[in-house]
């Protein structure tokens, strides 16, 4: 069994999940370290930056707990449907997109042009399609998507640290090539809110989510005779035990992730994203070792240039990511499962898959204007056409990635 991918199977046996008969003790050391980390970094952000960034840091921590305790991974959910025709994870993701649409679209519909708040809307073109396809392929090899990689790293998964390092490398390379990709055919961002109005956009989004949920559910029913009731299943060990030690019912994770993304939008002016920070961290490293990043067009654009020059503590994406990492660490400590997914030998081919998957995901995320969070979740919640196209292209890439997994000693079971 791979030491990584199973951490991302929503609700299945994994490093993040609990079982009704498995009462674990919290890991006091990890919980203490995570809480101290949250307090110290939170205090530094409070002292040096602005109050909204402290709140964003806290929101990131809650998102990390939700991702870990909900075992909410996009990668495993997609694979479970493709391989086993089990749709619970995928239906949870569609419920997440539907709820987020309900929360986001009325808010974004009231935003005046020129406002400092906007949804995740991005151009539609060759760059988006190729990037999302690559991301979908890479996430099956890497063992996790953007959020999955980050929360499993926070939970101490060694293999996913390798995926993250090469995710960062791929992201930086992607920033160097993005201007070239943007010269290829494409069109300006398309917002369904702009074209259909608030209620029209919301109706289309909800209809799409419902139709997809019905379709994947019907396929599961055809293969298994019935649909697993996973999305709305209640806690199996009592509210408080599930809340603090996991595993969360998927619906809890759906509600927290959707409202958390709305909180990021209201606080920062933009929906939740993850991977811009990966490129930023890599570029900062290169700059620190003497590389002149201004030779690359991407790093001369207003937002990236100032992000590169300024502190990571004022970069919204980085601050949220720091909170997420520590939140996942706290959750893993409370569950008594920190680093558990790294026990045992990791096959060399699995490590090679982590390297390749990370590189491909990083490159793809930059071309596609984000990962499963920034482009898929936030893009669709913002009623941006690019989010739906990202979904379709990444799905095709993921199909090929699932086929490639056995070559890298990665189980599809």
């Amino acid at each position: 069994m791979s030491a990584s991918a199973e951490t991302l199977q929503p609700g299945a046996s994994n490093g993040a999940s609990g079982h009704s008969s498995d009462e674990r003790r919290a890991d006091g050391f990890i919980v203490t370290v995570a809480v101290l980390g949250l307090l110290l970094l939170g205090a530094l952000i409070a002292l040096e930056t602005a109050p909204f960034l402290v709140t964003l840091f806290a929101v990131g921590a809650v998102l990390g707990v939700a991702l870990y305790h909900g075992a909410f991974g996009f990668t495993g959910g997609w694979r479970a449907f493709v391989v086993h025709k089990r749709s619970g994870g995928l239906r949870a993701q569609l419920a997440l997109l539907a709820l987020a649409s309900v929360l986001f679209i009325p808010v974004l519909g009231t935003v005046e042009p020129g406002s400092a708040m906007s949804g995740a809307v991005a151009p539609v073109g060759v760059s988006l399609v190729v990037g999302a396809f690559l991301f979908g392929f890479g996430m099956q090899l890497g063992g996790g998507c953007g959020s999955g990689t980050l929360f499993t790293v926070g939970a101490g998964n060694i293999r996913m640290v390798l995926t993250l390092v090469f995710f960062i490398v791929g992201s930086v390379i992607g920033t160097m090539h993005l201007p070239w990709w943007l010269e290829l055919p494409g069109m300006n961002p398309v917002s369904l809110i702009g074209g259909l109005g608030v209620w029209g956009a919301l109706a289309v989004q909800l209809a799409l989510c419902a139709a997809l949920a019905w379709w994947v559910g019907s396929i599961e029913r055809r293969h298994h005779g019935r649909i697993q009731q996973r999305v709305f299943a209640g806690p199996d060990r009592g509210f408080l035990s599930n809340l603090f030690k996991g595993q969360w019912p998927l619906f809890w994770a759906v509600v927290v992730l959707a409202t958390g993304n709305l909180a990021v939008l209201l606080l920062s002016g933009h929906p939740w994203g993850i991977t811009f920070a990966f490129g930023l961290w890599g570029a900062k490293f290169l700059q620190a070792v003497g590389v002149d990043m201004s030779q690359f067009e991407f790093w001369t654009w207003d937002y990236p240039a100032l992000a590169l020059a300024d502190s990571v503590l004022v970069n919204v994406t980085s601050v949220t990511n720091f909170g997420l990492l520590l939140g996942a660490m706290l959750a893993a400590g409370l569950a008594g499962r920190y680093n558990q997914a790294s026990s045992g030998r990791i096959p060399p081919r699995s490590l090679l898959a982590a390297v390749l998957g990370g590189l491909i995901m990083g490159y793809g995320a930059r071309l596609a204007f984000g990962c499963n969070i920034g482009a898929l979740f936030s893009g669709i919640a913002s009623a941006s056409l690019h989010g739906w196209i990202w979904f379709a292209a990444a799905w095709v890439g993921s199909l090929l990635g699932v086929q490639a997994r056995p070559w890298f000693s990665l189980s599809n079971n």
Partner: protein
Amino acid sequence: MQRHYKRWRVIVILLLIGGAVVADHIDSPTFRMNMGEGGLETTLTQRQSQTSACAPCGAPCRPED
């Protein structure tokens, strides 16, 4: 409870990451502005002055439209 990690490794890794974050911050315009230096453009001043949203998704910022 069986641990699958070494405590000192967790602490060293977090200290290294924390040190990198602090070093990056001390070298930033935000820190220099906090120390009293004026006339600097920082992320927070850019945020206050911007008239159109620029999402951190990596897409080129669009002019106000």
